[in-house]
């Protein structure tokens, strides 16, 4: 087995349920040069330093060729929209991210996320209340999936009556990230494209509407905002909204599902959480280390030769940063394969780091804290019906496709 095949093995679906032994293998070569020229970096300190390295670009226009393994799971939006800030470098990135932040975080809206706690609790409560047959629950379908879409709808300001339509589009788009083998790709592409167009038109309409009648929601604020950075064009606003929808949603689904799976595998922790909801705070941090929803950051490229860990990554190389492997680097974390919510120093890479560090992190944290503590409280004697569960195809955004569980009852 050549070393270069390691990444392929990681991308193989059969290893999806447990890539961690492969990550351990990968870390033996902190900077691995793949046969096809891509560089895979897997150790904590090296990943962290590249995330802060201004010679590393996220802008697709700097990609020399599509070097590296073709990512089946296309994560990018269609080219009809301008790239969202996740695929831009400063200063464009900074400008769009700052503009987005004016309606999401400090200094303008320091309490926006915090103030959603009550609303999140309500959504969680409704979803758990609607579960029905507690003998067989698919946690993904019935809970982790609908939860974040609903949250994003409320955040953006999608009217309640339109939420079901929005969910439909979101489902189709999310499914496109997860190609099903044996399915006709052209048919799916068509569906995806259609959903994308419809969603785009819907959002454009909503933005128009909000320009005339601003409300206290993010779309309105972004639409009417004028500051030192100017304001967003409608196209920029659309790609930002699409980014918030896809990135903010796909990751939270997996964070919650991985979380519940980990808790069910660690019943003592689940029991502690049941009686002590405050445990959810350190617990979610440890989860982000132990089972991060984003496993690796592909699509970065080098603007110059970069020497790291004794290897020179040449200018123009395609770079893969395996954050999930860094999170279990024994040089950084003691006993890294142990899930330990009492861990004191959990500076994980689960949200990345540097200028692209996860924009939605405060919201994702709160969503997961509220969801997991409430699940722990209300499900009586929950248990896994399948271990490991069926995973999604996606190696980058990794998580179970279904999580069948059962419980004796659901507490009010």
């Amino acid at each position: 087995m050549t070393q270069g095949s390691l990444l392929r093995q990681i991308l193989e679906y059969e290893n999806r349920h447990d890539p961690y032994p492969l990550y351990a293998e990968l870390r033996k070569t902190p900077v691995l040069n793949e046969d096809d020229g891509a560089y895979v970096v897997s150790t904590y300190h090296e990943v962290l330093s590249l995330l802060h390295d201004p010679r590393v670009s996220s802008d697709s226009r700097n990609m020399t060729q599509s070097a590296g393994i073709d990512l089946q799971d296309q994560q990018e939006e269609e080219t009809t929209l301008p790239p969202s800030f996740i695929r831009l470098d400063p200063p464009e990135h900074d400008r769009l991210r700052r503009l987005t932040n004016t309606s999401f975080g400090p200094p303008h809206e320091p309490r926006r996320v915090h103030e959603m706690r009550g609303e999140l609790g309500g959504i969680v409560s409704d979803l758990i209340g609607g579960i029905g047959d507690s003998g067989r629950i698919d946690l993904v379908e019935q809970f982790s999936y609908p939860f974040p879409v609903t949250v994003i709808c409320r955040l953006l300001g999608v009217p309640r009556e339109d939420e079901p339509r929005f969910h439909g589009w979101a489902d189709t788009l999310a499914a496109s990230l997860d190609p099903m083998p044996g399915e006709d790709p052209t048919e799916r592409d068509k569906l995806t494209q259609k959903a994308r167009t419809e969603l785009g038109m819907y959002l454009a309409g909503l933005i128009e509407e909000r320009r005339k009648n601003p409300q206290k929601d993010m779309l309105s604020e972004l639409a009417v905002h004028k500051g030192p950075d100017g304001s967003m064009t409608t196209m920029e606003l659309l790609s930002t909204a699409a980014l918030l929808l896809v990135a903010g949603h796909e990751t939270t689904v997996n964070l919650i599902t991985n979380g519940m799976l980990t808790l069910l595998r660690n019943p003592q922790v689940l029991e502690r959480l049941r009686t002590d909801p405050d445990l959810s705070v350190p617990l979610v941090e440890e989860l982000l280390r132990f089972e991060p929803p984003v496993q690796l950051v592909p699509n970065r490229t080098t603007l110059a030769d970069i020497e790291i860990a004794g290897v020179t990554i040449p200018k123009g190389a395609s770079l893969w940063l395996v954050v999930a492997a860094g999170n279990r680097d024994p040089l950084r974390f003691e006993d890294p394969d142990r899930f330990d919510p009492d861990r004191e120093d959990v500076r994980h890479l689960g949200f990345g780091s540097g200028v692209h560090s996860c924009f939605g992190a405060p919201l994702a944290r709160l969503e997961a804290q509220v969801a997991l503590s409430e699940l722990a409280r209300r499900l009586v004697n929950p248990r896994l019906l399948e271990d490991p569960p069926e995973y999604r195809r996606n190696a980058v955004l990794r998580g179970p496709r279904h999580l069948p569980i059962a419980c004796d009852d659901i507490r009010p």
Partner: protein
Amino acid sequence: MPADGYLERLKREGRIVVVGASLAGLRAAETLRTEGFAGTLTMVGDEPYEPYDRPPLSKGVLLGRTTPDHTALPRRRALEADWRLGTAATGLDMAAKRVRLDDGEEVEYDRLLITTGVRARPWPHDGEAGLDGVFVLRTRDDATALQKRLADGPRRVVVIGAGFTGSEIASACRERDIPVTVAERGASPLVGALGGVIGQVAAELQREHGVDLRTGVMVTGLEGDSAGRVRAAHLSDGSSVETDIVVVALGATRNTEWLAGSGLGAGPRGIACDAGCRAFDIRGIVTDDVFVAGDVARSPHPLFGYQFLSLEHWGNAVSQAETAAHNMLCESVDRRPHMWVPAFWSSQFGVNIKSVGVPSMGTELLISQGSLAERRFVGVYGYQDRVIGAVTFDQARWLPFYEHLIQTTAPFPPPFPTVDRRPEGARPVPADFPDPSVPTHGPTVTLSGYSPADRRMTFTPGRH
């Protein structure tokens, strides 16, 4: 007496005295307990308060966002210490291992840690300094008094000195819509710490926020009214400014007078110590039971040619305190050097400013990312063809990268492209620091000792 037996006893039932109960003192005390010190711990502090945090004093407190009594430092653990607050140490007898206190008592120690920090340099003319309305800003009491007067809605505030503290005070005044005049001897604000190029940016920032900034001038005198209240400041250019409040922000003086005659290597520049925080005596011999940390310490740093660095940086106080505490309790082979890369932050006029390394050593400056005009940038300082410091305005996330360049003595100018490089970042410019022989209001880093530029020196170790 076998050394390890001694250490065990020290840990179990020894006496450790910490003089200076502020940031460095508290963090050291916590580390001592965490590392297993079970003996008697005495905390001597001349302020009546439990350890509190100073950075908020010139930021949140002056803005009225927090009150001075809400600045207590968070405790990491219980200390079980004997607190002697409101008590100043007045002397040290190294032979008898005793610290004299101003209440006449003496406390004995097996190990002593000195963290007496610095104090604000007062207005040098006694009569004028005593006028009602003249302030400095270093302590909780200073902040309480100043904040109260700001809340009364003064006609105007005059700030003397545009270093970090002075600039932050001016920023707070403007945010509260109080007219403010800043008088600075140098060519621009922050010039001593960051040089003239960045200083120019700071100057524009101040003016844009409505500060009446006067540079290249000195305040020559303060004038009071018949009731002893300050009413005007006179400037060297012949002008004068009517005002109700004057804040003197002329840097700091090290609290070492109480050590005069003790035989410890303590003076106006601080207390010299080795990289392991052990103090030197006046003969240049390192002591084994007296340690120093925080603003009062000067210690040699390998990255800067082993010159002695005195830092007035929050992070340094914490890190040095932890190192000192660790070293106080262990064998020489287990001691750790304090090799913290200097780092500092400030926030003023809505901008987050951070620096790493020692910018004030730099002779050249390269704007490697962003733009001065947008006031969002990374500036890299070069000294003798290597990277010696960096500063960011609203770009702090890149700092770890530049810190690494400093740590690895990377070449200057950095020979690679970076994201967000603008035309102005094409080549370095002179960093434009004022002549070091002209004193400024005080950079927050001071270098003393021989210079790494000094290549004439040869050192021949003794024969084997």
